[in-house]
């Protein structure tokens, strides 16, 4: 087996792993009890999945076509940068829009700060607008 | 593939028509958005699907899929975007003026 063939295989393998990771994480999306826990499954596991896939793709093109795909690299960086931000934003939005935590949750150190004082601060009272 | 996509088009059209037949402006706009999805697919399908490679010269074998429908769809997409944007803003302005997004309740021109 040539280096190229091995490289291609590695690429495909990474992609396959990515696919599996993706399915598992979507499984979490169905299974987990509340939006916060689901966000863990989504933003991380699936980020992992896509990173694996993209790396696989990068490897594939590198070995099969001897082509360094800047776009794929850029894609990887981009996902790295933005996926956690997206997760952060959604979770924050969920919490601020008062989506309840699952009953199995044990701690909430944010509740007092945000929801109990909200009436006084009235940050984003869109009913007035 | 063509048959499958055609059936998909049929489903989308059905959905869109049903949405358009409602009283709420948003549903209507949404319906029109789905309609445009459907027709873009239709244009694509009518040119034949997967009949060759990506229409980039130098890529692949030299047998290309029909590029003309792609160009047409591009134009159509942009136009439908323009219209949707305008319609959406219109809906919003209308709501602000009238306080309703229900076309059934909004009587435009009155005679008697």
């Amino acid at each position, binding site marked *: 087996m040539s280096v190229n063939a091995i490289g291609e295989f590695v690429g495909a393998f990474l992609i396959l792993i990515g696919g599996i990771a993706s399915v598992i994480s979507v499984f979490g999306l169905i*299974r987990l009890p509340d939006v916060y*826990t689901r966000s863990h499954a989504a933003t991380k596991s699936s980020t992992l999945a896509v990173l694996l896939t993209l790396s696989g793709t990068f490897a594939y093109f590198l070995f099969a076509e001897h082509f360094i795909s800047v776009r794929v690299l850029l894609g990887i960086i981009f996902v790295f940068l933005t996926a956690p931000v997206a997760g952060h934003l959604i979770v924050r939005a969920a919490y601020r829009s008062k989506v309840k935590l699952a009953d199995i949750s044990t*701690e909430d*150190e944010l509740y007092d700060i945000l929801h109990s004082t909200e009436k006084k601060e009235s940050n984003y009272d869109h009913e007035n607008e | 593939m063509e048959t499958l996509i055609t059936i998909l088009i049929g489903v989308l059209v059905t959905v869109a028509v049903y949405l358009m037949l409602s009283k709420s402006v948003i549903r209507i706009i949404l319906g029109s958005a789905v309609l445009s999805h459907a027709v873009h697919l239709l244009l694509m399908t009518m040119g034949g699907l997967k009949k060759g490679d990506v229409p980039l010269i130098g890529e692949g074998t030299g047998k290309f899929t029909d590029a003309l429908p792609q160009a047409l769809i591009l134009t159509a997409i942009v136009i439908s975007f323009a219209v949707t944007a305008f319609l959406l803003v219109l809906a919003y302005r209308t709501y602000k003026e009238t306080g309703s997004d229900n076309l059934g309740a909004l009587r435009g021109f009155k005679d008697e």
Partner: protein
Amino acid sequence: MPAQLLLNLFIAFLWMTLIDEDELKFTTFFAGYLVGIGIIFFMHRFFGTQFYLRRLFAIIKLLLIFISELTQSSIVVLKQILSPKLKIKPGIFKYETVLSSDSEVTMLSLLLTLTPGSVVMEVSPEGNVLYIHAMDVEQSKEGLISQLKNFEKAIMEVTR
């Protein structure tokens, strides 16, 4: 530090002219640049500042730490998802960070969020307190905090 960079570029250019090829080649320039790196690393104490590529090493180190954390916690989360019965106890806890600048806080949050099992939910207006949602507070809170400390240190090496 800009002085180091300029010097490095100068060395590379010098290298290129010394090699004296028919045409200007990027590869030659790059080779010269590498030579320059070596020279400057060797001499950097004379400038009285730190070696300007030190950050590169710090970044690589951070990346490595991150990848290892990522893999570990990914496995934890995947296990939790796949386990027949959900045994997690999610919750929100707060963490006061020693980091101060926007980019540092951001970097910490990104890294923490990317590793499974934890999401930064809020940053306090002052920017020094993070509210973190964890998949399983009871079991992994300690682990998370040590992970945070780890990250903090690595980040500071990059930024300061």
